[in-house]
């Protein structure tokens, strides 16, 4: 039942995962590397931003940067997970904690609605989570093959897959200027930091500025 509920989200998830596969291929990942990352990290936006900032070599510092990126991008899951407390009330920890690995925004939103309508079966979140995970991992393969087949990414516009995708994701997030201070400040601080400091600092500055400015959003 939980698995069926996520059907409307699957085309969007597949499109996102294909874009990830394309970018991973462009970064020189093998297909196995691509699938291991997507199946274990399992956080679309964080994977994309990590790939955009992928280090040339792995050092303690460069791995720490990757960890900081995915932590920042996924901070919101602290809140998302917290809202599942009442849904899992009375469930044993050995069932709840593995299920939380598959927690993502679509099955979370659907579970909240299911719970609001009186649903109490904890397997609902799990069913949707398994369906999304399978589609997410499998659809990275055609994206990878398409990306790996292309020589010069600029010629086919593939270097702009991520910015184009992100621009599309910003559209439904727009709720008028008084409720969008967070990302206006984030964009401005990121551009300023890029001009002044270079490197990956723009991301840290932009995200922190956006996070702080978010406090002034209207409800």
């Amino acid at each position, binding site marked *: 039942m939980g698995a069926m509920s996520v059907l409307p989200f699957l085309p*969007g998830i597949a*499109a*996102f995962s294909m874009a990830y596969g394309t970018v991973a291929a462009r970064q020189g990942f*093998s297909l196995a*590397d691509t699938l291991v990352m997507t199946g*274990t*990290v399992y956080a679309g*936006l964080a994977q994309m931003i990590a790939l955009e900032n992928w*280090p040339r*070599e792995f050092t303690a510092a*460069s*791995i720490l940067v*990757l*960890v900081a990126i*995915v*932590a920042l*991008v*996924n*901070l919101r*899951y602290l*809140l*998302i*997970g*917290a809202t599942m407390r009442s849904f*899992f009330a009375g469930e044993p920890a050995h069932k*709840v*904690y593995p299920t*939380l690995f598959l927690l993502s925004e679509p099955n979370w939103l659907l579970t909240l609605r299911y719970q609001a309508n009186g649903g109490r079966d904890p397997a609902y979140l799990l069913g949707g989570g398994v369906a999304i995970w399978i589609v997410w991992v499998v659809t990275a393969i055609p994206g990878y093959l398409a990306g790996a087949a292309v020589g010069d990414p*600029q010629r086919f*516009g593939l*270097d*702009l897959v991520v*910015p*184009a*995708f*992100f*621009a*599309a994701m*910003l559209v439904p*997030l727009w709720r008028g200027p008084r409720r*969008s201070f*967070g*990302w206006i400040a*984030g*964009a401005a*601080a*990121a551009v300023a930091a*890029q*001009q002044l400091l270079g490197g990956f600092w*723009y*991301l840290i*500055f932009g*995200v922190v*500025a*956006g*996070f702080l*400015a*978010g*406090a002034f*959003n209207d409800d």
Partner: protein
Amino acid sequence: MIEKDPLGFLTAIAAMAIVVYLMRAGGYWLIGRVTIGPRLRRMFDALPGAIIAATVAPAMLQGGLRAVLAVGAAAAVMIVLRNDFAAVVAGVAVAAGAFALGM
């Protein structure tokens, strides 16, 4: 680089996977131990948009007119069709066209 350092790659992936899982499970675990007020909630709500904007804005500045046109096309298609796949296709097509025109 990845072929040369499989151990580094796996370490990076494992570290990222663990941190992401800690975010997923940590909030569930923490709740009841801390209270999240309306201000902090607004800040967390603003995070995804801030992250996306902080990634896109510098990319547009660095990519010049070609990137601005491609990202603009993706946003325009999204506003009209509300379909992220069509938006990405439009953005990539404009980027490829602009490259062909020498941008």
